């Protein structure tokens, strides 16, 4: 069985450090007004962006569990 170092650490690093980049990006586009949540289309995009982050995290989580326990 692979160790924590080779299983969950890459996952945590990916969505931890990657998550920081993502969060900074979301904050910049919100603060700058590039995404304007008063607009219906932009509210849709805001949801898609957040959903996409968790979608990819879920894919990696699912396949890690599958590799380890199935």
């Amino acid at each position, binding site marked *: 069985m692979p160790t924590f170092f080779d299983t969950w650490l890459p996952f945590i690093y990916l969505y931890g450090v*990657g998550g920081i980049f993502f969060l900074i990006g979301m904050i910049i586009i919100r603060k*700058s007004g*590039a995404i304007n949540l008063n607009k219906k289309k932009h509210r849709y995009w805001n949801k898609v962006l957040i959903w*996409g*982050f968790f979608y990819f995290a879920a894919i990696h989580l699912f*396949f890690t569990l599958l590799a380890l326990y199935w």
Partner: protein
Amino acid sequence: METHSQTIQTFHNIGTSTDWVVMVVYFMVIMLFGSYFGKYNRSTKDFFFGRRRFARWLIAFSIVATGVGSHSFVKYSAKGFEHGFSSTMTYINDWFFLPLFMFGWLPIIVYTKIRSIPEYFEKRFSPSARFLATVLLLFYMIGYIGIGFLTLGKAAMPMLPESFSLLGMNFQVTLMGVIIFIAVITGIYITFGGQTAVIFTDLLQGFILLFAGFLLFFLGISYIGGFDVFWNILPTEWKMPLAKFNEPSSFNFVGIFWQDGVAGSIGFLFMNMGLIMRFMATRSVDEGRKAATFNILFMLPLSAIVVGNAGWVGKAISIVSPDIVPPNTSPDQIFVVVANIVSLPGVFGFIMAALTAALMSTVDTLINATAAIYINDVHRPMKKFLKSKILTSKQTDKNELAAARYSSVVITILGVISVLAFKSFPTVYEAHGYFHSTLTPPLVVAIFLGLFWKRFTPAAVITTFVSGVALMIIGLHDPIVISPFDHGIHMDANHPYSYIRALYNMLVCVIVAVTVTLTTNWQEQIVKSLKKKSNGNALIYTLIFLSVIFFLMILFSLTALSIQFVIIILMMFAVAIASTYLIDYHPFEQTEGLTVWSVAKAKELFKGSKINDEEGEIIKVNWKKKDGDDEIVNFSQNDMNKMKANIGDFVYICDHRKYLGGLKSIHAVVGEPHNEDGIIYLNEEELLNGVFEEGKLLTAEKEM
């Protein structure tokens, strides 16, 4: 079959004559298909950008061939064979920078009407920043083309004999020989087709690639004995979706995260002119966002399976039948070896044709994009500098279209030459990783800070390009400086820190950029006092001369490491002062509409008047011809009311047949209304650009 060394086994003469016939037919069909769309090129706008008219689905699918080709079957199958499912990780780490791309970079490149990334640097900073960006970007693009050719060569080699006889003479089949032959074929339809041809051939190939990749997976699983057998054969560590944290040095998670997930993703989304031009060919920014989202959410995960599965199947076969697939098979040949084993003659030819055609898609997209950079950032500025005779816009366009075609040929040759720099890496994957880590950071940092930090100055960007690159060169000469950032990765003496050097390179560029920006006031004070001196100009030229000497000292590593760092600090000072002195920079004008903080203003500047955001209907109209050659179209007042359009608003007019994906469409400006409901008046030029057909309905939609 041949054994190069004790460990790696290579193959030749794989495939049958049926496979070659299938491949030749496939290529002929693709080339004919591409050249058909050459008729849609009426100007350089069409040749490079396809006139900003395509629907999202068409672009999303056409990007598959570009993405899959560049992140090829060869290199991911190689890593799939060596390390298992973690070969997919580079396809599933592109989301982190999407907010900044979709709401920062994409609207700005569209609304500022820039034709290349260096042009952005001129608008945002100065012509000298544009010049340096052009040099770096051309290195990046030509290197990328070289990687494409190397992969194509490696894919073709196993199918070819070791040597052949012609007219009584014996010729050895070499990798470079194969690459040159492929380059000639690749150059043909890109030279005569242009962006529209590339988009449509990529669309066709996108579908074929997905089909071929899944077909191979299905055949491979069946060959092994079903999915359960396949799953249970593979050891647990081969099933992990992410690689081991920091080992081995040739494939580790943390190095690849910084090289691909950060530098690569930003490079791919923000710097890859081939991909950016594809998004710029969508009919609106919102369609571009949809194409990008669809591609990253759905097409990339599917592509990850498509490109890597031959390696996984190869690994499984090598466990159960090592006599069929020896465990020491050359990783870069595993795709071809597995495809040959699991498929029938003819099917193998089809799969190989799909693979090589996908790679050609990538290469031709990149050649097209590099030609765009050449025309925009070298040809036009040179013509301006040389004060060539003034031509009409039609003559200029004809002249530039010819220059674009000739430059495509030269770029193809340079791409072939650049293969020499990557040939020595054990796999294409490592060559590509090293390439990304080394060439993307300065531009990535410059684009990012330019786009998101209003205070970032021309002096800072130029110093980043010069001193940041100098610090990167130190990392190339003395990889020991990278070790504090290596996360415990072992340094391979032959190819030190192929991936994690991206972190070092980005960090040094950011440090230079931020330091110079934060000391702008000091630089301005020094420049003020220099301008008061009678010998101010002479002092500045001395600083520039010294900077060149310093850079050469670093480039050829002429002093000890510690002295090189001192030299770089002096160089930073000299370049920052000289840039501040010489560049006439207006912080307000050169950030308005050019940073994420003023995207709305960029949209307004694009339109030239106030934005009309009212949501209207999409209407159907018949067209009638009118005189004139402007970009004005005329609707009835009732139709304008339905669209909520006013005079001066932008409209998108398109053939109503959705399956054409916007191929027959134009953008125009609403003019004075008439009183014939359901009729749009178009002039000759608009009809030719839109390739509209007599009697076919059009749809019209207000854009802004």
